[in-house]
């Protein structure tokens, strides 16, 4: 079973890595991360803060774009090109197919993130910033966020078209970063129905800001280890839930 998942994961990774769009986005991520050096010249005071801010934001943005674009296309393309029939006609279950796809995408994201992170580290070192362990932690948290995004895009990709998947995933990504407003919004609502609905959505939708530790990294403020631990557990739980529902949907899909 493990070998089958591994084979699908490796194939997914190779397929993603062969995509020219992937290289283009990684290139732009690196390019904008390096451009942060230029932006830092424009500020007064702590230029390193601006360099880290803009560099990390560029890497974050392009990694998210890669995650969404590769995620939304993967399953759809397999169905569209009918390659899914070849795979599923072999002794490979639909569950293994989804898990393999997810792991392959995770590997793709890890590669893209590692490439950008190495360049960014070199830039920080060259700018006299020194080695900062918190940045590694930041990349780890970003990787968790990417895994959640990949799981979301895979989920939508399992039952709808790439365009709709794109709209839904981007919407969830944006909402995921303003989940803190739900609690405030709930306070001003009077009707219990809307109140409970808001509360329900607050718990149901992904809170991606849990993985956003840019403030703590850039401003060098204290990080609570418990918050990190809970964020990791949250990511694992959310990914597992999404993969489970994706598998359930994919099992019921008729490819005729």
């Amino acid at each position, binding site marked *: 079973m493990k070998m089958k998942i591994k084979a699908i994961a490796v194939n997914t990774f190779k397929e993603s890595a062969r995509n020219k769009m992937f290289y283009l986005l990684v290139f732009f991520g690196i390019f904008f991360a390096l451009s942060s050096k230029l932006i830092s010249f424009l*500020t007064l*005071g702590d230029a390193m803060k*601006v360099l880290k801010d803009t560099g990390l934001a560029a890497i974050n943005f392009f990694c998210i774009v890669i995650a969404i674009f590769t995620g939304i296309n993967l399953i759809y393309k397999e169905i569209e090109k009918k390659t899914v029939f070849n795979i599923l006609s072999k002794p490979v279950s639909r569950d293994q197919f989804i898990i393999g796809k997810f792991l392959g995408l995770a590997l793709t994201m890890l590669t893209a993130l590692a490439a950008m992170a190495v360049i960014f580290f070199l830039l920080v070192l060259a700018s006299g910033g020194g080695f900062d362990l918190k940045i590694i932690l930041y990349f780890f948290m970003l990787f968790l966020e990417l895994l959640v995004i990949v799981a979301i895009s895979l989920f939508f990709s399992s039952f709808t078209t790439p365009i709709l998947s794109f709209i839904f995933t981007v919407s969830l990504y944006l909402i995921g*970063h303003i989940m803190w407003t739900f609690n405030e919004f709930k306070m001003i609502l009077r009707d219990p129905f809307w109140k409970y609905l808001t509360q329900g959505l607050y718990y149901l939708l992904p809170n991606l800001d849990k993985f956003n530790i*840019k*403030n703590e990294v850039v*401003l060098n403020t204290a990080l609570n280890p418990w918050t990190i631990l809970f964020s990791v557990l949250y990511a694992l739980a959310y990914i597992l839930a999404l993969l489970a529902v994706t598998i359930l949907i994919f099992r019921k899909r008729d490819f005729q």
Partner: protein
Amino acid sequence: MIPGRLLAAVFLAGLLLAAGMQNRYDSNLDYFADRGTFVSLPSGKALKVLSFGYSNLAADLLFIWSIQFYSTTYLTNRFDFLERVYDTITDITPQYKEPYIIGSLIMVYEARDIPMALRLLDKGSRLNPDEWFFDHDAGYYCYKFLKDFAKAEFYYNRAAAKPDAPPFIKRLNAHMVYLGDDPTMAYQMWLEIFNNARDTLEKDGAFNHLYQIKAENDLALLKERIGIFRRQFRRWPATLNELLSLRLLAALPTDFAGNEYIYNPEQGTITAERVFKWKQR
């Protein structure tokens, strides 16, 4: 089929026409005349929501823009929304220290609005309770521009209580107390600094201040008593001991270094060995 030369001519003509229009458009437009430049700036909270997790980047960009904008000196109306701009930046990332410092500098030295700068620095101090330099800067502006020594003392006192406050804050605080006409309290504060000094620079500085305050008090007392003597005997005392024998003084005061004050019996004047003009109000 359209000839290639015609296409090239159309291309060049189009380019020239576009450049001409662009020039005409720009010459009729004063980009900075529009007072509504800032109207579209959302509040800090709205911008935090709209930045979708990139609030640091939004704060950076707004801060960098503000530096360029407020350096554009020919814009006469540039200070209209100064407080709003820096409030927005500091609302997005309250821990970002530079905007408080640079913003208050612009408010003080460019806009000449000290209360506005104090409001910004107060916000910085409130949202970053462990940082001392917001209160230090506020204290300096009160001292330098408002000449409000009591307020300066309040800020320096608050700054001195912060965990990593450097020792010079306590010295500034004591000096503000002195300038605020409370020499007894100032003396006590300087004495504490003197007794706990960690280096000779600090000790010497405290010594000079203690010397000044003590001399000021002692000389005022001595001058008063010499005056009483003069009114009674229509002459200056020959020595200061005469004041003691007449019980006009309980004891002869000495300066902080332990030396006697210098008395001139011919003119009835009394001075200390060292008087520091730079410490006079």
